C-alpha cells in the first residue's frame, strides 16, 4: 500500500468482437512488478480471450498493451513472448510427442542463438548452449517435482503434472509476466494446495509478476493481492480480494447467473459456493 511499484504490464481499453459478440470490451489492467493478480468471472466472461489479446493470438481492435514501456499490441505472438510475456493454456497445449525435458528446453529456445552451421558441426558454442538449456530445464523440473519424469513423453503424464509442466515451460522463457489460465483445473484439493504455494514461490524465486485466471475462488482469494472481475467481456469490479468478494456487482454476476440458468448448473454453482466460503473465511 505504502509504495506503489512501477507498472509492468498495462492494458488500456483493449477489446475484440467476434461476429457481433463483444467477447472483451474496454478492458484495462495494470499489473505492477512482482504482483500476483487474479482475473475472474463466470464462464464465457472473456478471461481466456483477454489472455489471447495480451499474447497476440488475437489482435486487439481497440486500445493498446504495453510491457515495461514497450508496446505489445500489433506485435506477433513470438515477439510478445520474446518481450517477456509467457502463458499457459486452459486446454493444455504441450508438445505431446516430445519428452518432458524437451518441452521445457524448447521454452528457453527464444533466449538462445541458433545457427545452422553450429548445429551441424556441434561447435563448442552450440554444445554449451544445449547443455545450459538442459541444466536449466532440469532445475525447473526439479522445482515442480517433475525431474523424475524428464524422459517421459509429455502426453503420457497425468493431468496435474501436465499443468505443472506447462508452467515450467512458460518459466523457461524467462518471462517478466506469467499468465496462468486455470492452472488448478482438474486438480484435487491437495494438489491445489501445493499449487498455491508453488505459485507464491515462483514469484519470489523468478521475480515475475503473475496474472492468474482461476475458477477456484478459495485459491484466488488466498493468493492474489488484486483481482479484476470480468462479466460479459467487461470489467465489473476490481480491487483487493476482500473488496471484490463483497462487491454487490460481483455477487450479482455470480448469483444472478445461477438464477437465470437454474440451480442445476454445476460450474456456476461451484463458483457461488466458493465465493461464499471465501467471504466467510
Amino acid at each position, binding site marked *: 500500500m505504502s509504495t506503489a511499484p512501477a507498472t509492468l504490464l498495462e492494458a488500456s481499453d483493449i477489446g475484440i468482437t467476434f461476429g457481433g459478440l463483444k467477447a472483451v470490451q474496454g478492458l484495462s489492467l495494470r499489473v505492477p512488478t512482482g504482483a500476483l493478480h487474479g482475473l475472474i468471472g463466470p464462464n464465457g466472461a472473456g478471461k481466456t480471450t483477454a489472455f489471447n489479446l495480451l*499474447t497476440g*493470438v488475437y489482435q486487439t481492435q481497440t486500445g493498446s498493451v504495453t510491457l515495461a514501456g514497450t508496446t505489445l499490441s500489433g506485435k*506477433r*505472438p*513470438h515477439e510478445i*513472448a*520474446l518481450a517477456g510475456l*509467457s*502463458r499457459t*493454456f486452459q486446454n493444455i*497445449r*504441450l*508438445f*505431446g*510427442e*516430445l519428452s518432458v525435458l*524437451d518441452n521445457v*528446453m*524448447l*521454452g*528457453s*529456445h*527464444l*533466449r*538462445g542463438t*541458433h545457427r*545452422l552451421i553450429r*548445429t*551441424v*558441426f*556441434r561447435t*563448442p*558454442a*552450440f*554444445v*554449451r*548452449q*544445449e*547443455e*545450459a*538449456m538442459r*541444466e*536449466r530445464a532440469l*532445475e*525447473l523440473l526439479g522445482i515442480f517435482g517433475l525431474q523424475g519424469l524428464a524422459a517421459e513423453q509429455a502426453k503420457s503424464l497425468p493431468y496435474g503434472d501436465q499443468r505443472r509442466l506447462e508452467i515450467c*515451460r*512458460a518459466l523457461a*522463457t*524467462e518471462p517478466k509476466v506469467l499468465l496462468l489460465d486455470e492452472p488448478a483445473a482438474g486438480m484435487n484439493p491437495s494438489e491445489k494446495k501445493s499449487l498455491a504455494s508453488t505459485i507464491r514461490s515462483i514469484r519470489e*524465486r*523468478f521475480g515475475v509478476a503473475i496474472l492468474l485466471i482461476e475458477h477456484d475462488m478459495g485459491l484466488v482469494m488466498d493468493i492474489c493481492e488484486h483481482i479484476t472481475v470480468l462479466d460479459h467481456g467487461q470489467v465489473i469490479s476490481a480491487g483487493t480480494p476482500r473488496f471484490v468478494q463483497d462487491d454487490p456487482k460481483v455477487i450479482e454476476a455470480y448469483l444472478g447467473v445461477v438464477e437465470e440458468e437454474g440451480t442445476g448448473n454445476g460450474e456456476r454453482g461451484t463458483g457461488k459456493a466458493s465465493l461464499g466460503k471465501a467471504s466467510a473465511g
Partner: protein
Amino acid sequence: MKTLAQHTKDVPASRAFRPAVVFLPWVACVAVAFAVQLVAPALFDDYWVNVLRRVGVFVIAAVSLNIVNGITGQFSMGHAGFMAIGSYIGASTTYTGSLLLHGSVGDDSFAVQGTMLMLGGLVAGACAAAGAGYLVGLPSLRLRGDYLAIVTLGFGEIIRVLLELTSKQVDTADGARANPFAAFFSFNGPTGFFGTPAYASNFWIWLFVAITCVVAYRLKRSSSGRAFLSIREDEIAARAMGIDLTKYKVRAFVLAAAFGGVAGALFSHTGVNPSPTDAGFQRSFDIIIMVVLGGLGSISGSVLAAILLVLLPEMLRGLQEYRLVLYAVLLIVMMLVRPQGLFGVKEVWDLWGAKRKARGGTP
C-alpha cells in the same frame, strides 16, 4: 535462477568440446562410403551394385523430405520438383562443363576433372533447389495443411512443364562455347537430358547418404530441431513460446530442398537420364510413402523405408505383373498394423533402448 545467457557462459570448457562426439560421425561417413564402394562389388553382381546407387539416392531424398514433412509437420508434395532441379543443374554442370573445358564428355582422361565438375554440380544443384525452396516456401508456408499440399504439388508440376519447354541439348564444344549460358540451360525438352557420365559411384552416393543422415539427425537433436518439432506438435503453443513459425518453416523447407537437390544431382550421375516426368507427382508420392512408412520424424525409419521400398520391387521382379499388387497390399497392411509408420518419431535405437529399460537393465 540464472538466465540462459549466463548459464551458457558458465558451462565448463571440458563439457563444451568432446572431440569424439564431434568428429566421429564424419569419420563414420567416410567409412560407410568406402565400405559400400569396396564391399558391394564383392558380394553382388553389377546389376545389384547399380541398384545400390539408386537405393542411396532415395535414402537421401526420403531423409531430406522427412525434415519438412516429418519433423516440421508441413505436408510438402513437391519434393520431386526440387530433386529434378538438382538433377538437371547437376547434370548440365558436368555435361556442359566437360564440353567447355575438354571439348568432349565422358572421356576417361577427364574422369578426375569430371568428378570435380560433378561435385560442383552437386553444390550448384543444392543451391538452386534451396533457392526454389525459399521462393516456394516463403509465401506458401503461411498456408495450412491441404493448401500447402496443393501448392507444393503444383510447384512440382510447374517445374515439369518448364523443363518440357527447354530447348534442344547443345552437344558440341563449339555450340557450347558460342553461348555457354544458353547451352547450360538447354535441357532438351520432353525427351530428357542425355549423356551425363555416371561419375556418381557408390562411394560418392553413400558418402552423401551418410552426411545427410548425420546432418538430419544432428538437426533433429538440437534446439532448431526442437523448434521444428514444436511446430509440428502445436503451432499455437510454439508461437507462444517464442518460435517464429514462418522463419522455421522456411528453414525446414529450404534445407529439405537443398538435400533433395543433392539427391537429384547424384541421381543424374548414375547413368539415368533426367527427364521432366522426374519432377512430377508420381516421384513425389514415392518419396512421401517412404517417409510415412518409416515414421514421420524418424531419420533411421526413413533410411530403412527407402532401402526397403527401392529393393522390394527389384526383389519381386520375378513375380512380373503381380508385383505391383503385392507392393500395394504390403503398404496397406503396414499402414493398418502400424499407422504411425515403422518407428513413429523415434529412432531404431530408441526402441531398442526402451526394450532394455522395460526389462530393467541399466539405462
